[in-house]
């Protein structure tokens, strides 16, 4: 029976009949609407401080993929927990799993370290048959989520949304309020994924550049020779420009509130109403690009914290991030909530409609992004060139001249899809490459300020992130933990020699797409930060990895080869992330806020998870005001499990 929907414990009669009438031949047609759980995405009517959650395995079938999923209350995602700021919540989590421990981590919540739910760091985990009571005061409000931090249970279904009511009336009142939790579903266990990736890093990628795709690339690059040169340059580096996601729609079905695209999750509105949509990326390996064709979205919160409203057509949500958006549909028609995966191998989809059961048109997916030299952090240096000997105390990458060249390149007028004029001077291999790609950081659709690369003098130099100009930030940073350029070793295959500021870029694949796409530089908190102190210490962390061996880490080392990051109590620290890999990494610091230095001065957005774009450099401030052991890691599950994880100790 080719029934796309999920069922557990056999087919219901209705589904069986639907399946019959549909037959096998309509496999390619839109499937009938089968609203599964009418409550999915519905926020409980009132906040409650006490919850009992039972973790067990349940047989769930979605999109013909059967999984004995670890989950809460037999459902994926788990229940939406609604709390109220100011309350002390008490959650009893009972582990009914046969022979594995479990845990629940409250993602983005500020709480005592012992309640954070990370086995080994916060507590010893919850053994089978045992109950653990989490108890902590709620000091914040907004959209968050929870997930297991044990084994890889999160990847298989142990996650859910948290909505916390603010103490005061919401400054953005909405008639309707929905949670939209995006995730993945696969019958391949994450352990098997990792096993396959260790043997073949592009195991799940079937969109490589091939002979068959050469004519298309040649057209885009303005010549076969140019396309071949580009390929050769990537091949020489033993990397693939098509490496966007490690695990893809080849095995994933993308879910929206636990619904496969053909199950068409529905949210109801009355025309003219303001509808709040609380987007949560609960996936383990997938970034989503979200839009609702025909509707403008007003981004009003990021990672639970209110931001000045930004009207956008589209935004990218990294794994573990949350965004609240408000839409105001005026027509009585169906609008499609379309969340395509960054690599464009699939999408999650739902519908906003005045009546249940409606569906709107599904837009085609965009072309998949292709990585460029900017993602390699290469500027205009040759891939093989060593920067050793150039490394100086200022930790400057590249000479001033090189930096000038780079700026020159990027300030070319953006001509999306058109070959850029060749530069006569020093036409090195990868310069040629860049010539073939549209200028990476030029004007997006919205004409907002743009991330032109910083001049060389500012590149990669501690304490000179020049987003926040105020005098406070000009104060000297007393202590700098600079690991230096990462080594090229077993665990690291690339050095971003010219990392650029990409905060104004919405991300690979979203530039110049004709839509207004959110970028980090647009996020502005609605109130100034609570800690005005300038940082007294800067910690530079390089994100590193070896795709070929599938090892990830920081500073060329995986977790097991590193020590903890020690912060003094109440220390004010600037973290600077330099991404030497060619992938995005959503970096999550538990227990403490990450205040992104994105040029908004004192109105820095407070986030718990930050996307570090490939080849980029960004910084954020942290106040170490919560003692204990905290996890600090890339939220791509397989990156975390292979070493991109550190323990932060606040003493």
């Amino acid at each position, binding site marked *: 029976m080719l029934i796309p929907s999920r069922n557990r414990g056999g087919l219901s009669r209705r589904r069986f009949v639907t399946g019959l009438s549909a037959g096998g031949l309509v496999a390619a047609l839109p499937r009938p609407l089968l609203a599964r759980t009418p409550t999915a995405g519905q926020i409980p009517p009132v906040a409650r401080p006490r919850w009992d959650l039972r973790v067990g395995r349940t047989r769930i079938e979605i999109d013909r993929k059967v999984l004995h999923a670890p989950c809460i209350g037999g459902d994926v995602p788990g229940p939406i927990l609604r709390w109220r700021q100011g309350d002390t919540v008490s959650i009893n989590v009972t582990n009914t799993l046969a022979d594995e421990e479990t845990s629940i981590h409250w993602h983005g919540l500020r709480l005592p370290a012992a309640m954070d739910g*990370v086995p080994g760091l916060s507590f010893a985990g919850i053994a089978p048959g045992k109950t653990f009571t989490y108890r902590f005061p709620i000091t914040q409000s907004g959209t968050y989520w929870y997930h297991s931090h044990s084994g890889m249970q999160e990847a298989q279904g142990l996650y859910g949304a948290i909505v916390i009511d603010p103490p005061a009336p919401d400054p953005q009142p909405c008639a309707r309020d929905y949670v939209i939790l995006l995730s993945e579903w696969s019958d391949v266990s994450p352990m098997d994924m990792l096993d396959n990736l*260790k043997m073949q890093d592009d195991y799940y990628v079937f969109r490589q550049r*091939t002979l068959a795709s050469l004519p298309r690339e040649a057209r885009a690059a303005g010549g076969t020779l140019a396309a071949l040169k580009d390929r050769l340059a990537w091949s020489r580096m033993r990397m693939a420009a098509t490496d966007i996601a490690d695990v893809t729609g080849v095995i994933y079905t993308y879910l929206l509130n636990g619904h496969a695209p053909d199950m068409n999750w529905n949210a109801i509105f009355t025309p003219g109403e303001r509808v709040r949509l609380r987007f949560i990326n609960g996936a383990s390996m997938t970034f989503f690009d979200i839009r609702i064709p025909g509707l403008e979205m007003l981004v009003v919160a990021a990672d639970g914290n209110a931001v000045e409203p930004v009207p956008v057509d589209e935004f990218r949500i990294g794994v573990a991030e949350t965004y609240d958006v408000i839409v105001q549909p005026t027509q009585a028609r169906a609008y499609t909530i379309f969340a395509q995966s960054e690599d464009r191998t699939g999408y999650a989809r739902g519908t906003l409609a005045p009546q249940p059961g409606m569906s709107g048109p599904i837009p085609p997916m965009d072309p998949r992004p292709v990585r460029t030299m900017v993602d390699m952090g290469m500027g205009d240096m040759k891939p093989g060139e060593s920067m050793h000997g150039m490394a100086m105390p200022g930790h400057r990458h590249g000479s001033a001249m090189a930096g000038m060249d780079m700026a020159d390149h990027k300030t070319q007028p953006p001509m999306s899809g058109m070959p850029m004029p060749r530069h006569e001077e020093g036409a090195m291999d990868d310069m040629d490459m860049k010539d073939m790609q549209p200028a990476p950081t030029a004007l997006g659709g919205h004409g907002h300020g743009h991330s032109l690369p910083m001049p060389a003098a500012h590149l990669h130099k501690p304490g000179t992130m020049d987003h926040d100009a105020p005098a406070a930030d000009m104060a000297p940073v007393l202590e700098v933990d600079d690991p230096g350029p990462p080594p*090229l070793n077993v665990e690291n295959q690339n050095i971003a020699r010219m990392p650029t500021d990409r905060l104004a870029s919405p991300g690979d694949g979203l530039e110049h797409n004709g839509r207004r796409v959110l970028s980090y530089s647009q996020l502005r908190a609605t109130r100034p930060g609570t800690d005005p102190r300038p940082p007294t210490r800067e910690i530079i962390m390089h994100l590193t990895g*070896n795709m070929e061996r599938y090892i990830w880490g920081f500073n060329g080392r995986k977790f097991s080869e590193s020590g903890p990051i020690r912060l003094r109590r109440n220390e004010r620290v600037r973290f600077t992330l330099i991404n030497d890999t060619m992938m995005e990494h959503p970096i999550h610091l538990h227990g403490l806020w990450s205040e992104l230095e994105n040029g908004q001065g004192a109105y820095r957005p407070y986030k718990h998870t930050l996307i570090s774009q490939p080849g980029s450099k960004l910084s954020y401030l942290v106040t170490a005001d919560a003692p204990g052991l905290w996890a600090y890691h890339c939220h791509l599950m397989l990156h975390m499990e292979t070493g991109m994880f550190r323990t932060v100790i606040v003493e």
Partner: protein
Amino acid sequence: MRRALLAAALLLPVTALPALARSQTHGQTITTARKTATATLRKPPPGPAYHAADAPTNAPVAYVGGMKPVMDQGRYLHGILDQLEGRYAPGGTDFRWDGEAWYGGDYNRLWLKSEGTLEHGRLHDGDHELLYSRAVSPYWNVQAGVRADIDDGPTRTWGALGVQGLALYQFEFQATAYVSDRGRFASRIEGSYDFLLTNRLILQPQAEFNLYTKSDPARQVGAGLSDVDAGLRLRYEVWRKFAPYVAVSYAGYLTQARRIVHDQHGESGALRLTFGVRSWF
């Protein structure tokens, strides 16, 4: 002259070793000082005032219940049969396999390599190696161990030392030097490349060369470049782990070995239409 060339060829894998290691970790003294994942954790040597906030320390973190939050030291087991094929000829079809398996973590692995050809009911070119493999750079592993030539000919055993990895432009490459229990030297160089015609249809040229310092007529081995086994395989990856292929393969003896085989009235080389399956787990 020929001797010099031969010596150079034999030395290639050995000399390539440190050179490769050097080229990959050029000047990166800071962290290559760390030898193994489990070695005593050392402070970086003096140099520029670099200090990593997450530098390895001697004061281990007291994890609750001794539980490590992530398992980045997993061990894996994989095996691949690159060649499992019939080489068609009017006089009789040869059957050949060539594969390898490994078990271990990111740095240390145990490798097993095996290849052989069944020809007219006789097994020859049987070559089996058990190697310890150590990752030394982003793309290269150093391998050392033993090789046994076990087939229907006389058995020979060798000590082996070589490199295996991914060369520039994504060439798969292996070069190994051998020294036998009788004090002879040999070398093997293997390479292959995947041309993606589509994402599933892949054309792979592959070649393997064997060199020896001394002839061994009982094993059809000649001094110098002794034999070559090459193929041009067009495979279709039905699944990643299962790909049937059609190929032309060439197995032949060269230089002195060619004369030895000729004197033994053997076939000195043949280009054959070949069918097979590439699979792995």
